[in-house]
């Protein structure tokens, strides 16, 4: 397992970061608020188990601040979001992920 996951942090969350900004900044009416229907990545890949040890995967669902990416942004289905949230919390407990990043 490689150790320089600090670098990976920025890269992996970048795609979501942009989406995050767009959704948040859209205050007015109209615009391109409704984009495409987002679909659950885990459902497509038929993931049944999300492992807390898979830091690289989990990291793509915790933006810089260290919070868990909400479902409305990632488009995840409810059951996978639950699995993911549990995995992230486990990873936090064992210091693989931060509770809060300054």
């Amino acid at each position, binding site marked *: *397992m490689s*150790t320089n*996951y*600090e670098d990976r942090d920025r890269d992996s969350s970048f795609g979501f970061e942009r989406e995050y900004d767009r959704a948040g900044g859209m205050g007015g009416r109209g615009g391109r608020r409704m984009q495409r229907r987002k679909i659950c990545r885990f459902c497509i890949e*038929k993931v*049944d*188990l999300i492992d*807390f*040890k898979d830091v690289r995967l989990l990291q793509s669902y915790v933006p810089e601040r260290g919070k868990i990416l909400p479902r409305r942004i990632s488009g995840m289905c409810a059951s996978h979001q639950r699995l993911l949230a549990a995995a992230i919390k*486990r990873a*936090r*407990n*064992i*210091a*693989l*992920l*931060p*509770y809060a990043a300054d």
Partner: protein
Amino acid sequence: MADKRTYEVIFIVDPEADDAEVMKLSEAVQKIITDQGGSITKIDMWGRRQLAYEINHKREGSYVLLEVEGSGAEIAELERRMRVNDRVLRYMTIRVDEDRRRAQKFKDKRARKAAKRPLTGKAKEAAAAAEAEAAE
């Protein structure tokens, strides 16, 4: 408790401990488990790794991951020992057999569904041809 359970035990050892000490500690852990009637199915040393946040003013630590099979009694003993050992910065035990069984169930379900799905197009023709061949 007659049923066998599977646990994942992960713990972080003080970065000041060298490899030999980490080795010794993990051997001690294995001994505790086997003494209590459990068995170890996997042992994985991740080595030194940066912590995501400070624990006891330490910024890194050596991770050790174990997979343990047993009744649960050995986990209680192991956790008690790790709590008093100040070389262990943090530990976590997770019961994995239930989650794995659940995942397996979904997988089986999918496989069954795929088998039941009526064949269409080319696949149907191929199946019919194979049947005809078998009849001859």
